[in-house]
């Protein structure tokens, strides 16, 4: 240091200190000016989320979040649940699910369905958000768009019950051959490819939503990519959509039932899938509901929040690879693994969320049977943890495969936190109980799908969510002709029962078929059921009427309202 005398040194230090203080003050002032300028500059390009409270009584507004950015809101292309939820607020199909999750009239006020086709009578006051009348032609056009091979819609298969739909989708027939016709502006006639028992449930699905031709063509291929390139017919319209940041819905003044939406605005002010960010936002009173993870449960109880749960309808399971060259084609090996694990332990000790049910069957508990729930009428056969039995089957498997030791098995899994835990858990369980060596193959979404498609796995952690409210949405999954049967399970008996369920009009006969399918799945150990997923969530005490559902738009705030 310098060779000042202490007094001299101190005076130097204090004078320099004062200068630094000035420098600091100047920096702070400068930074504030800079931030103002940047904020102004950024407001030129986009409108941000303004921090309002979760529940705004004066403006009758709810502030919420979206888990992900909707890839686009073109109903003929949409595939994901977030888009499904948003579309459910701003669009309406012929039929819809009401607040009690029952099928209710939507744009169609009456309908008749028989073996050959259906007739929908549209309500006269149904209008688009630009005030023009909504006609039967808009449905025909939307379905043609979805089936057009050029659109390459991944959900076009859901339209296949309509006559010629599949052929049109494959480019074998022109679009005009579709089995749907607008008799007049108010009447839509649908012809079926083959008899179908659940068509009313299908038309509530987003691919069946209407699209108006002149508007669609005016957007020049960007339909549904922005708030202004979409035409609405639901209880809300999107008045602002800042990509990746926020999405604002306002009440649609042209909607036919103005009393249905209770709040004036739904402000999806945040788009984040980060669990702690959403929880922190909820704690800060910035969003009106948040999903809980197992690790936040105690915290939620300490905060004294009201906690809710519901089953989101999907089932998760270990899917085996049944291709000939794979060891998992051996039934005894699959049985050994089935009896060596306990899905109850997975659910109660590992996933640890209330609302999860230990997996028993491919058919979740909420599916309707003949009179009551399907699973009550057709109880699923259960496999109790039984190590003796498991090891017995393992010995048989070794003999049949002619090996001393089962070669290492590849367990394919995705990269989300739950499948990480699950794969680590099963790796240890099968190693401890059967001495099996499982190799975890963790892949990002698209790589996992590619490997599932090419059969590059022995076991895969998979799941399935319902598209429509009928057991068939699960039952045909392992039919040999189903492309989603990634393990290539093939069983003519199984296919037979699927055909019965597809074409029969008789409820009892169909449910019996599903019962047979459930038994085959168990006997053949096609899968090892893991769990039925539940969602645990908290809501703002002043918000009521939020609807959660397994099939259809979820979460649904159309009926949500604010109490003071």
């Amino acid at each position, binding site marked *: 240091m310098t060779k000042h005398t202490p007094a001299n040194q101190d005076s130097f230090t204090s004078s320099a200190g004062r200068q630094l203080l000035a420098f600091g003050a100047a920096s702070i002032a400068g930074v504030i000016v800079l931030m103002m300028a940047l904020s102004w500059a950024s407001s030129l390009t986009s409108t941000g989320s303004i921090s309002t409270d979760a529940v705004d009584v004066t403006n009758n507004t709810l502030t919420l979040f979206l888990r992900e950015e909707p890839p686009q809101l073109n109903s003929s292309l949409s595939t994901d649940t977030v888009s499904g939820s948003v579309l459910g607020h701003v669009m309406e199909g012929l039929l819809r699910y009401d607040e009690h999750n029952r099928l209710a009239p939507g744009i169609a006020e009456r309908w008749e369905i028989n073996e050959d086709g259906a007739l929908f009578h549209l309500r006269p006051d149904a209008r688009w958000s630009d005030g023009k009348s909504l006609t039967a032609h808009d449905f025909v056009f939307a379905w043609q768009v979805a089936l057009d091979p050029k659109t390459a819609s991944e959900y076009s298969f859901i339209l296949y019950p309509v006559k010629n739909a599949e052929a049109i989708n494959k480019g074998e027939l022109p679009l005009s051959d579709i089995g749907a016709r607008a008799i007049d502006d108010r009447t839509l006639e649908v012809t079926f490819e083959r008899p179908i028992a659940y068509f009313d449930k299908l038309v509530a699905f987003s691919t069946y939503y209407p699209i108006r031709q002149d508007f669609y063509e005016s957007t020049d291929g960007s339909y549904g990519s922005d708030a202004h390139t979409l035409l609405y017919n639901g209880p809300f319209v999107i008045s602002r959509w800042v990509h990746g940041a926020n999405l604002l819905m306002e009440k649609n003044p042209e909607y036919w039932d103005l009393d249905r939406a209770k709040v004036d605005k739904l402000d999806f002010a945040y788009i984040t899938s980060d669990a*702690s960010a959403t929880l922190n936002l909820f704690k800060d009173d910035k969003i009106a509901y948040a999903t809980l993870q197992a690790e936040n449960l105690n915290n939620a*109880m300490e905060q004294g929040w*009201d*906690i809710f749960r519901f089953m989101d309808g999907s089932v998760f399971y270990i899917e085996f690879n049944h291709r000939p060259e794979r060891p998992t084609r051996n039934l005894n090996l699959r049985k050994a693994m089935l009896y060596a694990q306990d899905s109850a332990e997975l659910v109660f000790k590992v996933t640890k969320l209330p609302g999860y049910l230990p997996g028993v069957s491919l058919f979740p508990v909420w599916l309707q049977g003949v009179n009551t729930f399907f699973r009550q009428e057709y109880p699923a056969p259960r496999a109790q943890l039984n190590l003796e039995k498991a090891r017995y089957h393992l010995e048989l498997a070794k003999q049949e495969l002619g090996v001393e030791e089962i070669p*290492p098995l590849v367990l394919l899994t995705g990269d989300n936190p739950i499948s*990480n835990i699950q794969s680590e858990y099963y790796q*240890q369980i099968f190693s401890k109980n059967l001495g099996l060596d499982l190799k*975890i193959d963790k892949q990002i979404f698209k790589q996992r799908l590619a490997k599932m498609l090419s059969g590059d796995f022995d076991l895969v952690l998979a799941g399935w969510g319902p598209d429509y409210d009928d057991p068939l949405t699960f039952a045909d999954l392992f039919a040999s002709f189903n492309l989603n049967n990634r393990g290539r399970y093939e069983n003519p008996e199984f296919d037979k029962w699927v055909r019965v369920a597809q074409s029969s009009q008789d409820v009892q006969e169909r449910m019996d078929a599903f019962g047979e399918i459930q038994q085959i799945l168990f006997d053949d150990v096609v899968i090892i059921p893991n769990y039925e997923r539940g969602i645990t969530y908290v809501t703002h005490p002043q918000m009521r009427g939020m609807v959660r559902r397994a099939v259809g738009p979820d979460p649904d705030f159309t009926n949500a309202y604010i109490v003071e």
Partner: protein
Amino acid sequence: MAESTTPAPGSPDQFTPLHSEREIHALTRPSLSYWQDAWVRLKSNTRALISLYLVLGLLAFTVIGPMIWTVDPSAQDVDQVSRPPGADRAARVVEPYKPWDGSVAVVDGERLQLADTPTNQAVRLIWPAAPGAESYWIYRNILPVDENSAKGLPLIELFGNGTTHFEDRLDLAPRIYYYTLVALDGTGVPVHRETLAVDVKRVVTVEEAVGRGLADSAEDLLVSDVVHLALHPLGTDYLGRDMLARLMHGARVSLFIGIFAPLLYVLVGVIYGSAAGFVGGQTDQAMMRFADFVVALPFLLFMILFKIAFGIGPGESGVMPMLVAMVVLLWPSTSRLVRGQILQIREEGYISASRLLGARAGYLILRHMIPNTMGVILVTVTFAIPSAIFTEAFLSFIGMGVAPPTPSWGSMCNDGIKTMLTTPHELIFPALLISITVLAFNLLGDGMRDALDARMRSTE
């Protein structure tokens, strides 16, 4: 030696041959090589010395640690999930769990009550049917519940008035729980509500106790004996795995990447840079242009890209792709540095002298150039280690790191961050180790820079 004799200029006989004078060479202190000198300086730097010991300690933790603490890092103990260090481990031995059909030995109940001793296996509740009830909800709280407070976790909804029992098995810990029963009528209006406090005790079955090595054989154990569950000095993680063992094994990944990646890419950089610097001219220019290209690649973006492009096969840890990606992306900065040094050294007198004496290129590089740049290289490596450790942690945080079940400090941090509020030990320990390592290598780097390179020496 010029000062030894100063004869006046004159005739040749005035010149006498200079004989070696050993006494003049007598040194007051032992001759120090460059490295010895550096070591002396490093030793006098307390901070660097402490960090050196820290680094050695970390290496010991990684290499020797698993030999002393031999717990299997992948062994799961689902009864001790996310336990903090020092948690109570006593457990009573009980019969194996048997499914329950709702039957109970004695029914005397007018109230919500227990049908069996509450254990962390299961809590069994029964209650009398409430008149007018169409469905029942069971809630569980960790705090006392009164009429107005929140009821806690909704465990189940039972439809109809037929089922009046419930078995709770969800993640039970040895503590007091408050169960609330709410009976609803057909319209969803509560007709009855009551709360029961339940003190859950930790139990273990004979089979589990023997299976986990808590007792030698089943004969030694009687039902209602008390055993102590396995000791976890630093607690357990979300699957009941021993944190200490995982930290040790995680250190292998983190330190392996942290140390080997910099060593490798610095090596590549040294070879490339010294070749370019030594050859010079057009080749040098071309080589450096290429290095410029690689430098321009956005590091983290390409790290992620390469990571998925290499792909991790089944059962692989994903360490190698990360290592390769780092080497591919990070060598140029070292090569630039080394090239600069070589260009400088090339002009030095001793190089020309050595050249004149017929030294070949390889000899020049190995004998003169690399040793003279060694100090700079070592300092570069030391400073590169913390950033490599950070990169690994960062990639693990965004889910692009090592594959499960391989632990690394970064992935452990990522898991721990989610439970930061309830079980902070799952975040604190790995984060602390990352911080200590990074700090130790940074300070060591400072010390080595001061010790090895006079030009780069800082004032402290």
